[in-house]
């Protein structure tokens, strides 16, 4: 059914395409799930708003962290688990972290066997580099080198390899299709999504017994971010509008080294290869803040240290508003071999060659630790009124959109790519199994479908009001000012108020262009509505979490409060209220790691 400004979309005339499973997202997590399902012979489709290799996974640079014991033959997934739990500031779920760290090596080797062009060691093994927050022997054995890398283009290598494997497996792609909203039936089971083919503007109900949200991050809620322009939190928006819970939305990672002024990232791998940060006096200041790990402390710690240097007047540049990342001492050869992409990016976006001059960098919004809560099988979980968990039938989530909670309050570098492939796969496996056993999902009614068309019909029929790009800019400004690295109660309250006003304005959002063919204005308007949901959830959760933990740092509650907040936060759109959910301390194989003071 074409969207051309004439008439509403209605269930009675909306065409239906039916699949066993659909995966919304063609990034690393979506393609891994897609591969699993295609190989199992199920009738599946991978839906992606961009051609799969344009997904944001392509931008990942430094690598995929995993104890494959290449750099150190004694490396142990339990050490990786310990680091990840500590990195999460103890609100990562230990069953999930254990699963990821243990399953990881097999998956990384499998990616290599598929063709991923990893860099190599002299022995012909996969090359691993040091990344932040990595240790040997449960923090007692010094810095580990655990991040498997394809130069500094690991995401590109991984995404293209997975796309290629999907071509081989004959995966069915709905490429350049935009998913709008989930369709739930009367029993609150998910029965598929409303989506449209961007090129033709034709809308459909994509019906499936299993729907996977693998829609990636939402960094575009901030004005300055390392994220692609398409990272607008669409899956999270869909889940919230469907009345489902989201988890730990206040936990946003600010990456220490975004290029000042441009926001583009230079990988932590730069510091892993021996680079370090300096202030205006040329001082290697991380030695003061983290005497052991120094520049390879956890990202939250490094980002805060940089901000303190800047706040205390030791920032670099005419406005003293950034720091320098020094790499020139590593020599042009190493930069060329290990960090070629970084060299390219610095030349393009900072107009400097890192072999001669340090790169101006500043902490920049990078990654959403929070998202749609799931269990280790990718099954989406929501919270019932009595506080207990409930599995949402028919719905899965994986990747950055999900919160299986391996990252808790702070993600370690290289752990996202691992999360994508391990949990993309586990979601696929669970769907395959459930199919064999038979899935009982009842039909949605016409009213159910029309309910899910409300949002897009509103945008399509808008008659006057503001353009989405104007509203988006204001939203990004508020988030940047009030919900950055350091947070204060007063700022956050004002921020929430402003977001309230922006929500009112968004009710009057105007889509001037009603054309049907490749209408990118329509896509951007719908994306804005998703950004708004994510931003509001972030803001309210941030103001409710009355402690400092991981990436969430507030001046009125500067300490971690394990008594009250060793918990996930849970948020619903209708009530705009935050409740708590228990963190999992029940790994299956090892003993749980209990909270301790986190120093690096």
């Amino acid at each position, binding site marked *: 059914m074409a969207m*051309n400004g004439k008439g509403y979309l209605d269930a009675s005339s909306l065409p239906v395409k039916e699949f066993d499973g659909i995966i919304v997202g063609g990034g690393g997590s979506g393609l891994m799930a897609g591969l699993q399902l295609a190989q199992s012979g199920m009738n599946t489709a991978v839906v992606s708003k*961009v*051609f799969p*290799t*344009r*997904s*944001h996974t*392509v*931008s990942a640079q430094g690598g995929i962290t995993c104890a*494959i014991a290449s750099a150190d033959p004694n490396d142990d997934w339990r050490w990786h688990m310990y680091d990840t739990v500590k990195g999460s500031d103890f609100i990562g779920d230990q069953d999930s972290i254990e699963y990821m760290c243990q399953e990881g090596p*097999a998956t990384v*080797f499998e990616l*290599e*066997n*598929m*063709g991923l*062009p*990893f*860099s*190599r*060691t*002299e*022995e*012909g*093994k*996969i090359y691993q580099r040091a990344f932040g927050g990595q240790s040997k022997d449960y923090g007692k054995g010094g810095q580990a080198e655990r991040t498997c890398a*394809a130069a500094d*283009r690991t995401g*590109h*290598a991984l995404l*293209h390899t997975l796309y*290629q*494997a999907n*071509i*081989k497996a004959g995966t069915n792609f709905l490429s350049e299709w935009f998913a709008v909203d989930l369709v739930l039936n009367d029993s609150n089971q998910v029965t598929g999504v409303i989506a449209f083919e961007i*090129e033709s503007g034709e809308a459909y109900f994509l019906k499936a017994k299993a729907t996977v949200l693998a829609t990636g991050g939402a960094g575009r809620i901030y004005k300055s971010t390392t994220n*692609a*322009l*398409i990272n607008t939190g669409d899956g999270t928006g869909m889940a919230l509008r469907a009345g489902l819970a989201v988890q730990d939305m206040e936990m946003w990672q600010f990456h220490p080294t975004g290029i000042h002024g441009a926001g*583009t990232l230079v990988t932590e791998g730069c510091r892993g290869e021996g680079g370090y940060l300096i202030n205006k006096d040329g001082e290697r200041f991380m030695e003061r803040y983290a005497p052991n790990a120094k520049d390879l402390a956890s990202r939250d710690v490094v980002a805060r240290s940089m901000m303190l240097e800047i706040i205390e007047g030791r920032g670099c540049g005419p406005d003293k508003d950034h720091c320098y990342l020094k790499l020139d001492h590593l020599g042009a050869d190493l930069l060329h071999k290990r960090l070629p*992409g970084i060299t*390219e*990016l610095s030349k*393009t*976006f900072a107009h400097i060659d890192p072999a001669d001059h340090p790169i101006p960098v500043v902490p920049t919004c990078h990654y959403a630790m929070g998202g749609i809560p799931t269990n280790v099988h990718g099954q989406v979980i929501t919270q019932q009124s009595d506080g207990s968990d409930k599995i949402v039938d028919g719905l899965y989530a994986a990747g950055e959109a999900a919160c299986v909670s391996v990252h808790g309050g702070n993600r370690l570098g290289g752990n996202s790519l691992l999360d994508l492939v391990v949990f993309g796969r586990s979601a696929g496996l669970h769907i395959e199994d459930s199919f064999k056993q038979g899935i009982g999902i009842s039909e949605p009614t016409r009213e159910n479908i029309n309910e899910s068309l409300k949002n897009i019909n509103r945008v399509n029929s808008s008659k006057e009001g503001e*353009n989405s*790009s104007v509203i988006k800019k204001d939203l990004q400004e508020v988030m940047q000012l009030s919900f950055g690295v350091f947070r204060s109660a007063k700022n956050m309250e004002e921020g929430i108020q402003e977001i309230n006003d922006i929500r009112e304005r968004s009710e009057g959002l105007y889509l*001037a*262009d009603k*054309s*049907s*063919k*490749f*209408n*990118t*204005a329509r896509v951007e308007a719908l994306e804005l509505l998703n950004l708004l949901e994510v931003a509001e959830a972030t803001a309210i959760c941030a103001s409710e979490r009355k402690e400092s933990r991981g990436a969430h740092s507030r001046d009125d509650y500067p300490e971690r409060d394990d008594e009250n907040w060793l918990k996930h936060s849970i948020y619903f759109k209708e009530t705009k209220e935050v409740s708590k959910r228990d963190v999992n301390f029940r790994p299956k194989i090892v003993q749980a790691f209990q909270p301790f003071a986190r120093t690096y």
Partner: protein
Amino acid sequence: MNSIAAEQLKTLKVSIYRYDPDIGKKPYMQSMDIDIPKDKDIMVLDALQLAKEIDPTISFRRSCREGVCGSDGMNINGKNGLGCITPLSEAVRGNKLELRPLPGLPVVKDLIVDMTQFVDQYKKIQPYLITDKKTDGKEIPQTVEDRDKLDGLYECIMCGCCSTACPSFWWNPDKFLGPAALLQAYRFISDSRDVATEERLDQLEDAFSVFRCHGIMNCVSVCPKGLNPNKAINEIKKMLIKRAI
């Protein structure tokens, strides 16, 4: 970009290819003036976003905005390139910026071309590792030297700038595989882990797949990642000829 005071702005004349199949009008060039910062060098993609703020109906693809996803290949003042990493200082001539879709592929709308043919050619070369190497659950070993052979090949972002600058591809987009697909063919041929070299060469043997390349070198001069498809094609040609004798 930050909002900037008026005195720090200057005007740039942008001319953009417009076409919407639904309107029934022939394609035309739309001219508009946009305000750009005086002393900051912005990218072509930034300029295009500014144009879209004035006229939201202008359509183009973009994603990563850092030259790694391959979305925004377009023809910039006569040369194919990526909007997001082409600074105005490099692109603009005589204060004019002319933006057209990549040449030779069907236009869907404005700067958006139908990439189907391009992707189909890519799929034809079996763009995945074919191997029978034993691994016992670990990696297939590869020496540093063998891995180095993939540099300059695997980094392709499938932007299409090269193939759509290649006259041979314009004339035979269905038969001549084009520089991008051939670069990938050579990427797998060069991979020490791949065992299907003969099979791959068999597929490339006909008169069109490879041999339509006449070394015009457009592909090399436009590749935004600095790759050299022509060199890869020549290597394939050499292997094919060697096999024939």
